[in-house]
């Protein structure tokens, strides 16, 4: 009886500690100038990849190395990324350092919600070791289901005191009046949440609105 109570108390203490750590991580800002920034980019299927590559086009070479994460069934994105990086290498004098990593998809288009919970948990299991290995300075994503386990893994790195990772979420231009499911989840967990239409800025005043950026 007593041991059960102790276990419950210990569980509650751990939960409280984690919640506190989460709060601290979400409210801390990285200080100080830097020369380079390693980047973890989550590329989803089709348009998500196209949009995120457009965002990367204008970034300076200081954002290096670039780690791309794609779903293991997504060959189209791998191809687009290689083309993008090849183009970049052709137009700059610096060597491109980039890597493509594959993880299982969190959910397929039109997949049922229940099985989505299971596949997302499985993705988490694989995302954390990958995120931990890369330890990026910055995670950049724009909404595919794949990004939720990655962002949670990045947060975990902060919670466990391993590294504070800046999480920047850019909601897709497709989202004019309502956030995507990933957006609704990550709105509370990202450091900067960027929207591209004024209606969303009005609904979510804490978001960042820079106009249309793709």
């Amino acid at each position, binding site marked *: 009886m007593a041991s059960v109570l102790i276990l419950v108390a210990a569980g509650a203490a751990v939960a409280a500690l984690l919640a506190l750590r989460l709060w601290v991580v979400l409210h801390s800002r990285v200080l100080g100038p*830097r020369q380079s920034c390693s980047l973890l980019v989550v590329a989803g299927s089709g348009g998500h990849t196209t949009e995120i590559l457009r965002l990367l086009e204008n970034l300076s070479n200081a954002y290096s190395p670039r780690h791309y994460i794609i779903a293991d069934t997504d060959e189209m994105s791998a191809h687009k990324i290689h083309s993008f990086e090849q183009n970049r290498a052709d137009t700059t004098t610096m060597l491109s350092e980039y890597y493509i990593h594959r993880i299982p998809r969190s959910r397929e288009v039109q997949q049922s919600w229940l099985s989505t919970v299971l596949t997302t948990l499985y993705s988490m299991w694989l995302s954390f070791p990958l995120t931990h290995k890369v330890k990026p300075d910055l995670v950049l994503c724009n909404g595919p289901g794949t990004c939720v386990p990655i962002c949670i893994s990045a947060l975990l790195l902060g919670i466990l005191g391993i590294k504070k990772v800046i999480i920047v979420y850019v909601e897709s231009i*497709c*989202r*004019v009046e309502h956030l995507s499911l990933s957006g609704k989840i990550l709105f509370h967990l990202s450091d900067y949440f960027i929207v591209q239409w004024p209606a969303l800025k009005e609904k979510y005043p804490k978001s960042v609105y820079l*106009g249309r950026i793709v």
Partner: protein
Amino acid sequence: MKCVFVTVGTTSFDDLIARVSAHDTLQIFKSLGYNRLVLQIGRGKLVPEPFSTESFALDVYRYKDSLKEDLQKADLVISHAGAGSCLETLEKRKPLVVVVNEKLMNNHQLELAKQLHKDGHLFYCTCSTLPGLLQSMDLSTLKCFPPGQPEKFSAFLDKVVGLQ
């Protein structure tokens, strides 16, 4: 040679492909002065049979590395509501009709089509209302689409990561 280009991006949109290659729709295209129809069918299961007659030609393919060339040659683009397809087409200043896929969950693509239509940049419809729209629309009323500004994003990011 007036050309219609139909694109579904990386998705599967059999309803659209069926609608545009149906006999009555082909008649509408002909009556509007088009003599070529190119279908980019992506992951779709429906593969219409290509043909070429004196007055009309139909081409079909799944993917290309870049749709730039087909967009460039098109006089009218009919597209699914994917952001990539829409933006690429609008940036090339081509008249665009977006067909919304009613079978997608939450149909988030509809929001973008509606907004761009509200701003006067494209027409939108569903598969069933496409023939009606083709016959009634006035392409000259479409407005030019200004480019996005990714440099604002890079300036913002440089600031927040401390790269300045």
